[in-house]
């Protein structure tokens, strides 16, 4: 996780770390393009969790997310020879992931159901948030967290696909407006307006849990 992503709820501008990361990726991509297929595994290991996270947060279904993540890497592997390095590999890979997820969501709009991962207890931010919401412990706390997770995912799924994508990339994955605009192929203004509108909807849905 980059340093820029540690800033809670702030817009992330392309940092020097992100630049170094892009350069390192470009070197690996060149190796793969030169015929070193094994080098692609490094890219898979590096980005699989993030790609999976984005797709999972868009679909709220871990089985679909797993299959789609594999498909994304297969597509990337098949097309990496045509990758022209006009954008970073990360942006290119995210674009494939978002397009795959959107395509899947459009196809299976009527038969979507939740299949959620457990919220990791070791994450300090989530522990802090849960502690702020409830003083229960043990089994009651777990039930509370489950219910809260359901409400969160329901609220997310009530958003349109494009609004959900913007919220996922900005609030959960920590990307900047510029990067989201590049990935989604729209203007920064569109990203901002979608984000604003999506937050309004989420606030209305999650009103009992948030500070007014």
């Amino acid at each position, binding site marked *: 996780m980059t340093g820029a992503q540690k800033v809670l709820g702030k817009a992330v501008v392309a940092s020097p770390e992100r630049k170094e990361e892009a350069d390192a990726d470009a070197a690996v991509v060149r190796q793969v393009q030169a015929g070193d297929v094994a080098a692609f595994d490094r890219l*898979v290991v590096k980005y*699989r969790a993030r790609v999976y996270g984005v797709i999972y947060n868009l679909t709220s279904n871990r089985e679909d997310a797993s299959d789609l993540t594999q498909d994304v890497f*297969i597509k990337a592997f098949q097309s990496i020879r045509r990758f022209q390095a006009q954008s970073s590999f990360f942006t290119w890979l995210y674009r494939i992931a978002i397009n795959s997820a959107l395509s899947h969501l459009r196809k299976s709009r009527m038969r979507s159901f939740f299949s959620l991962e457990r919220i990791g207890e070791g994450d300090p931010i989530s522990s802090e948030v849960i502690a702020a*919401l409830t003083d229960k412990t043990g089994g009651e706390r777990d039930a*509370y967290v489950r219910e809260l*997770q359901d409400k969160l995912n329901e609220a997310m799924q009530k958003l349109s696909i494009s609004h959900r994508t913007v919220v996922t990339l900005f*609030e*959960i994955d920590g990307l900047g407006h510029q990067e989201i605009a590049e990935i989604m192929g729209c203007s920064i203004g569109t990203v901002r307006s979608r984000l604003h509108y999506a937050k309004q909807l989420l606030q209305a849905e999650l009103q009992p*849990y948030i500070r007014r």
Partner: protein
Amino acid sequence: MISHRDSQVTLEQLLRLKRAERPPAEFWTQFEQELRAKQLAAIVEKRPWFNGFGRLGSALRHLGMPLGAVAAVSVAWLGLREAYFSSPASVPSMTSATEAVRAFPASVAAPSSARVFATTVQNPAASTRHSESRPSPVASIADAALVPQVAFRGGDALRVGTWAPSMAANFASGPAISMTSGDRDLLSSLPANHEAGLSLAHVRSTEPLAKMISPAEERRAWLLAETVSPGASDFAPRSRDRMIDSLSEDRLIEAVQNYGVDANSIRFKF
């Protein structure tokens, strides 16, 4: 309904909870195995042939060609491919229409109209007999469509193409369609000039409007035919006599002598 404290978190912090929704470590082992299997399958699997269009399109997009230009180039390429590679390799190449006509072997099961046209070129008088015996001139077009592809080059500056059969059909059906009775008589009265007959047929066959005969031309042909052929009708001798009368030498000299021209004056005799 869940019970909770008075909320002290923001929407952004609440959404960060979703970041903690992660799969366990063992999930990635299985993920890697499945990905490896899919990767191998993707390498082995043959891609469909139409994937090439996508690659071609993306390559042209990198070159900055607009979609319309790409479409135009594709259509042109397909057209050229159709024209050059689908025609038989043994297509003969001839320098004139006469050679093309001569090239139709009589022994080949050639359409009747092609044979008729070849005969017309060699002996225009024969065309009358053929055209009279032909039941319907339109039927010759269908026959002529069976004519093998022929290349016309040289003076006509035409090239081989899929339109060659239709050109041959034009050549073959030209006289059959355009010739009226006046034309047939006119042709029969003319000397056996192959080239003249051919050029007339060629012009009429290549230019559809030329196939239409003006009333004046038809009338002229009819009059001329009636004048030249003896004993056609009662009207013919009288008109011929009148014409011969008007063109007689004595009357011409007399008419000239009635007029006198000096340096400064003109004289008329009555």
